[in-house]
């Protein structure tokens, strides 16, 4: 059995958290220890999301936890929400992705762009885990450039008709409802992008799991096909308008990812420290060798910096002052440093580091996806470049 996880807090950052924030973090941490860690290795090898965790996650209130109580959500602040993501991804990026998609990519747009009826219909059911959602933005040929999407929504006399395809959709085959982004105007008109709530049993909608993933294996990733999908008039998210609407959702999700990646890094560091103290080679624990100490010192430094980064980001978000560019910086930095730490931990563990019994290689493989999704590392680099210089490198 793995030694108990203690978290990483070299700078007494706990003193910057409120009692509620710590209580939320500790509750999710205990839940992850007891419910997630014991099953995640097998789920990963078998290549499916551990669905049996959904009721427990819902009962704790992990879905859309920063949305208001009137919709059955926990009404937490954004730091507490971030801490949830941190603890979930300490378990596995795939499980954190599940919660991110449900909360930040489906519940959030319904909350932000939906009608009162849509909010009342969907949010309580999604908070309680009875309805699972997915988010369809990326297409086979439009990843980093979502403005070019070719999925269309044509207005008919009694509603909408959607046609197109979406790819890399987390929870696609599990979901009862999909938020699908489509152009309502000309192909060149990104301002005509609108969000639609598509019940997945609608005729013409199909989802097929993508096979052969070597990363995020404990998460279901699907391809969506929409072929003459007829929707009622009220399927549109009335307050969505242009590409900025889905990008707002992505800002929410990326905020959570900045915290989540930190959790994966903390898990790896914890494993590295424990292993380096117990593994004896050349007559002493390998933690006594300078090369391993340098690795550990580097990891602790990067984790501490990343913790300060997301905590301040969360406080800014709670004050309504957070900018998407600040989120880009945090996502870019924290996922990159987490990937490095996972890789270094894998190496510190020697041959054992390649086994599913340990966490490092699973986290490493997962983080390669996290590095790429929700705005690739490179795209966030260019977002920052544009912010600094005022010149867009995209056009």
């Amino acid at each position, binding site marked *: 059995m793995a030694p*108990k996880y*203690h978290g990483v807090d070299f700078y007494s950052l706990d003193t910057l958290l409120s*009692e*509620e924030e710590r*209580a*939320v973090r500790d*509750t999710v941490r*205990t*839940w992850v220890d007891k419910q997630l860690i014991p099953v995640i290795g097998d789920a990963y090898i078998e290549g499916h999301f551990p669905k049996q965790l959904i009721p427990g996650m819902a*009962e*704790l*209130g*992990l879905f859309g*936890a920063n949305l208001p*109580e009137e919709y059955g959500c*926990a*009404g*937490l602040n954004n730091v*507490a929400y971030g801490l*949830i993501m941190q603890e979930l991804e300490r378990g596995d990026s795939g499980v954190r992705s599940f919660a991110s998609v449900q909360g930040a990519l489906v519940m959030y747009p319904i909350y932000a762009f939906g009608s009162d009826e849509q909010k009342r219909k969907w949010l309580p059911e999604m908070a309680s885990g009875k309805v699972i959602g997915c988010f369809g933005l990326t297409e086979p040929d439009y990843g980093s450039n979502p403005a070019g999407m070719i999925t269309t929504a044509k207005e008919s006399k009694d509603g909408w008709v959607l046609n197109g395809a979406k790819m890399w959709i987390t929870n696609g085959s599990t979901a009862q409802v999909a938020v699908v982004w489509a152009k309502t105007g000309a192909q060149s008109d990104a301002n005509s992008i609108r969000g639609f709530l598509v019940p997945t049993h609608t005729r013409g909608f199909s989802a097929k799991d993508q096979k052969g993933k070597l990363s995020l294996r404990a998460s279901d990733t699907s391809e969506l096909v929409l072929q003459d999908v007829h929707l009622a008039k009220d399927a549109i998210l009335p307050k969505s308008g242009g590409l900025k609407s889905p990008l707002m959702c992505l800002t929410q999700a990326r905020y959570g990812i900045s915290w989540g990646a930190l959790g994966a890094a903390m898990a790896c560091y914890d494993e590295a420290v424990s292993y380096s103290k117990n593994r004896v080679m050349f007559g002493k624990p390998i933690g006594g060798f300078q090369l391993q100490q340098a690795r550990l010192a580097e990891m602790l430094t990067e984790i501490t910096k990343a913790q300060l980064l997301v905590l301040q980001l969360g406080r800014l978000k709670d004050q309504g002052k957070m900018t998407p560019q600040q989120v880009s910086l945090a996502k870019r930095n924290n996922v990159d440093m987490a990937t490095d730490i996972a890789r270094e931990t894998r190496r510190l563990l020697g041959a054992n580091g390649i086994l599913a019994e340990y966490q490092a290689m699973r986290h490493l493989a997962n983080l390669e996806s996290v590095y790429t999704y929700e705005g690739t590392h490179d795209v966030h680099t260019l977002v920052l470049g544009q912010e600094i210089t005022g010149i867009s490198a995209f056009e």
Partner: protein
Amino acid sequence: MKIAVCIKRVADSETRVKVAGDGKSLDDAGVKFILNPYDEFAVEEALQRKEKAGTGEVVVLALGSATAQETIRTALAMGADRGILLQTDAVPADGFVTAQAIATELKAGGPWDLVLFGKMAIDDYNSQVGPMVAELLDLPCVTSVSHLTIENGVATADREIEGAVEVVQCPVPAVITTDKGINEPRYPALKGIMAAKKKPLEVKPVTLGGGSIEVLEMQPPPARKEGKIVGEGAAAVPELVKLLREEAKVL
């Protein structure tokens, strides 16, 4: 059902504790404190009984420093209705002093259908306060209960004793101290954590008598002797068995 649950804030058994400079207390710095795990069973038992009855009140009572409010709020987050902190500078070494203060408060706030404690606190291992409170309140007391049913004013309790289960009965109201196995304590849901902030938590400063027990000294346990590696893999088994038989004499 009006149920009192008496709880204690204790250092997490996973934390590495250090003896403080005075040589007779623990250094709090960097120590994580939790709701005593046996008291979690007591809280859960109270909540389940209230839920089953469909009505009632679960009141959580703790004695300790102001920081114990956080521990009470953990129980409120699990679902208890209100909390009372008997605030002191420190938890006295003499369990009887604690028991007197708790009994006085319970008398004033009663009558109770049931008074629950954890079977012991994981910091002092005394198992004293529950039975002492029962005595002071003139109530029957059953300790270390791993299963409890209450019907028609009679409590039937299982106690896990050496090699057997003892089943005992007593009238209620009674003081019951809970053991592992009685239930599976719930996680405080996030909504519960938010709601706990708004639940009443009464802080009552109390002055305690001196008691007759004094802690003279605290010492960390002696360091374990270094182990011996007899070899690796299957080839080491005969040597290991030999040593276990001849040296350790455990086989």
